[in-house]
């Protein structure tokens, strides 16, 4: 079992110009804890949206790597999106699912990945270019290679512990986050239009 904060900090240390979308709840806090960045788009709601925001962004910015970090429950709500993404074959899109086999935000109720549902296998069956399951910090170099350098779409599922982490809350005004992201990516003149 991996520690989510250490894993996300490791992954984001090498992000370069990568565009990042984070699913609601702990993935958003994990990314904030690793260091705020104008090219982070933090979700605080809209469960099930993270992967498809990643697809729209990846198709709009084909020269940039797009990384989505989300949780197992959030990705299970968007299982269909894995099919949609696989069919579109965006070479620059990577999904990282932080899998604690539970709904961590709502009281740690048991999720479905603890009962045999395998998100990496689902993505592979849908047609993702590459997938990876990791359970051990020794595998993080393979994870970094997959997320940043392997032609996409790729999905990695990382088994993480359910230990609670301190809350690190980023900005939650959606307009601000969206405009900040667009200003950083497209230039200030296009932040709002």
């Amino acid at each position, binding site marked *: 079992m991996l520690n989510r904060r250490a894993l996300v900090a490791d992954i984001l240390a090498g992000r370069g110009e990568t565009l990042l979308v984070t699913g609601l709840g702990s993935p958003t806090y994990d990314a904030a804890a690793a260091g705020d960045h104008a090219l982070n788009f933090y979700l605080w709601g*809209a469960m099930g949206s993270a*992967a498809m925001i990643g697809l729209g962004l990846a198709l*709009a910015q084909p020269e940039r790597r797009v990384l989505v970090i989300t949780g197992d429950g959030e990705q299970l709500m968007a299982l*269909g999106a894995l099919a949609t993404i696989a069919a579109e074959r965006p070479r620059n899109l990577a999904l990282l699912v932080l899998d604690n086999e539970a709904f961590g935000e709502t009281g740690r109720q048991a999720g479905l990945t603890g009962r045999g549902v395998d998100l990496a296998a689902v993505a592979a069956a849908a047609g993702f270019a590459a997938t990876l399951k990791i359970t051990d910090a020794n595998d993080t170099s393979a994870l970094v290679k997959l997320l940043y350098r392997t032609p996409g779409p790729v999905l990695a599922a990382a088994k993480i512990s359910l230990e609670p982490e301190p809350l690190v809350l980023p900005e939650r005004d959606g*307009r601000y986050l969206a405009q900040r992201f667009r200003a950083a990516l497209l230039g200030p003149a296009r932040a709002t239009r």
Partner: protein
Amino acid sequence: MSPARPAAHDWARDVHRVLSAYEVRQVATVPDAGLTRLLELAATDRTMRLITLTSEEEGIALATGAWLGGARAALLMQSSGVGNCINMLSLPALCGVPLLMVVTMRGEWGEFNPWQVPMGQGVRPVLAAMGVKLFPVERAEEAGAAAEAAAGIAFNGGLQTAVLLTQRMLGAKRFADSE
């Protein structure tokens, strides 16, 4: 003898022209019979990418990502798909994301299938409750102007709009037609 019917107005061409004029690059859909020609026009337009979804709410998230990346998207769907989008409409509402939807209506005028009625009748109150501005179209000749108005307010104002192509305009599907 019945008089010859005039050729039906090609509303799909008009709507496609609006999508093109507004530089819509990602056209997302769960298809509907009433959208067939518009989807064909999008599929053969080299400036547009037609993206087939498994469920309509994916298109709301896709449009948000497209906009974050500096591109514009539109979502084309049947009225039943509007119900799948409700919570996801929080995303563009909260983030000021322009969203243009084109909805082919069922369950409102000459509908043969009662299973289409609850969501068809629910489209307007549901979208209005989520803050979406509505542009219903009763006549094919007005579809282009409605799409222009809806696209303008969406893309210039960071708002969410829906062109509702009514069943009265599209013509009710006959029982013998394929579902």
